[in-house]
């Protein structure tokens, strides 16, 4: 997929000026509210008309003010998943799913109802009306409906913002499963760095109606560490849980990690750990209450705002810790330094994300 955008759009005092090329199968659009993310979506989908400029998808023009081309939204073949599911209330789940498929020309039909229903696990919902589905179920149907229209590009405009945390991560695994299975290029729009990192590797950061950066999600996350109140979120895949002395011990690529025994035991999963919750020691501290003390090597250092990020290597694992620049000087931390990282057992938080291929049905109450 290649999307080229050179557009100008004015709304009162706000102006959106974009000049960018997006290549690859997945790209994030990141920015605070009011940065122009949703406007970008509307321009690409044809729901808003730029004042001037050009929008090209895979070389073919969607809009070109020079040659007076403005393809209507129904002919662009661009699917959208909105923040709200926006399902048609007068149609059943099946009717909603088929709405786009029926209007897709036979030569473009690649994804059929049966395979989509399997991937998104929609079978039990098919005959139901959309008004008594739960929030997560509705969003799953909305994703299915957009995907079944067999779009050239899928735009996801904050599709998780209206959901609670638990559902958010379940829907992410559905989104990833569906995009991977059917190989649909997508733009993922969000103001959440965590969502962004779970969904895409490339990202465009918007600020004040302009492109502030076009980079990797990882780089952007590190750059924003010092600005974010939660720091940098390390994402760790933990496996093979065993119980040991009232705690859960997980295997991780960087070694073993001790976590408090949870209410619900899981054999593993994705956990988050803030860069602020890691304390670094130059020498082995003899007595410490933190349950995890890991010997590690400094790979690199980076500055972010008033903070200093320290990239640590533990076997195959990587962790980012943050310190103040003065501490880096005092401890003489340079690439190659050997350090001890202390992490409290309670600093880890499990993301309720289903494993690929075993997406859990959501079961929160209706309403």
């Amino acid at each position, binding site marked *: 997929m290649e999307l080229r955008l050179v557009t100008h759009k004015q709304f009162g005092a706000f102006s959106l000026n974009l000049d960018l090329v997006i290549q690859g199968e997945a790209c994030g659009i990141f920015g605070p509210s009011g940065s122009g993310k949703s406007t970008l979506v509307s321009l690409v989908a044809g729901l808003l008309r730029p004042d001037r400029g050009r929008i090209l998808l895979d070389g073919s023009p969607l809009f070109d003010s020079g040659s007076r081309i403005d393809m209507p939204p*129904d002919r662009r073949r661009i699917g959208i998943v909105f923040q709200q599911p*926006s399902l048609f209330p007068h149609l059943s789940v099946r009717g909603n799913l088929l709405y786009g498929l029926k209007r897709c020309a036979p030569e473009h039909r690649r994804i059929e109802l049966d395979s989509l229903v399997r991937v998104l696990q929609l079978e039990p919902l098919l005959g139901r009306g959309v008004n008594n589905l739960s929030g997560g179920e509705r969003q799953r149907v909305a994703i299915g409906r957009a995907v079944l229209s067999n779009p050239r590009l899928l735009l996801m405009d904050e599709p998780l913002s209206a959901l609670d945390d638990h559902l958010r991560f379940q829907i992410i695994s559905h989104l990833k499963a569906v995009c991977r299975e059917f190989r649909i290029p997508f733009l993922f729009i969000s103001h959440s760095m965590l969502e962004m990192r779970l969904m895409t590797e490339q990202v465009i950061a918007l600020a004040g109606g302009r492109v502030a950066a076009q980079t990797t999600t990882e780089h952007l996350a590190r750059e924003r560490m010092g600005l974010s109140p939660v720091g940098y979120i390390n994402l760790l895949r933990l496996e093979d849980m065993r119980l040991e002395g009232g705690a859960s011990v997980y295997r991780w690529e960087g070694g073993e990690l001790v976590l408090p025994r949870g209410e619900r035991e899981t054999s593993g999963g994705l956990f988050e750990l803030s860069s602020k919750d890691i304390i670094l020691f130059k020498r082995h501290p003899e007595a410490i209450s933190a349950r995890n003390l890991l010997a590690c090597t400094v790979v690199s250092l980076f500055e972010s705002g008033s903070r200093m990020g320290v990239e640590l290597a533990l076997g195959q694992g990587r962790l980012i810790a943050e310190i103040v620049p003065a501490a880096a000087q005092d401890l003489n931390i340079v690439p190659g330094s050997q350090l001890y990282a202390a992490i409290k057992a309670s600093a880890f938080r499990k993301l309720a994300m289903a494993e690929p291929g075993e997406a859990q049905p959501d079961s929160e109450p209706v309403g």
Partner: protein
Amino acid sequence: MPTFSPADYSAILISLKVSLAATVISLPFGFLAAYLLSYGRFRGKLALDVLVNLPLTLPPVVIGYLLLILLGRHGWLGRALASLGVPVLFTWRAAVIATAVVGFPLMVRAIRVGMEAIDPRLIQASRALGAGPVDCLLTVILPLSVRGLVAGSVLMFARGLGEFGATIIVAGNIPGVTQTIPLAIYDYASSPGGDPMALALCLVSIALSVAVLLIHEQLGRRMSRLD
């Protein structure tokens, strides 16, 4: 207890027939006008808005008189219809046209209220899913406007039962042909000893209005159950 003459019965029937015909004929035009006023972007939208709403504020007699000119022997519409062999003035058809014009703004207003309550995201979703403007109109906007269409129809039908000023000018007051309930009441009220009959017809009029409102209420309740 006064007994109704055949002319009185036919006044009741003509009232119902004229109101029903005016409502049914107006429905597609009302829907289209509401759509254009709600979603259209075109030059002259304000003019259309004013034109549609004008009968609401104009005296019905003025509308009747303008229709009389338009439908008369020298009016372009009257001539066109006459050449087709369809006489209009002083027939029940004229009563239908007068009723339709007078009730039209009420119908358009009710449909618009329903139409503008539709979540714009649904329309955008339908367009992005490949539906053209007409497709979207028929498969999303129309089904979601049903409540407004019902409300508009009921309002117009009820208003039509009471139409007087415009009707008497273009359709006259011919018993058994164009005489509706209000025209019959007018006749009785202006003739000596007609009071009991005028009152009896008033009761019929009240009963019809109450029935229409009850049906509307019932339909509304059933529709909100479906939601």
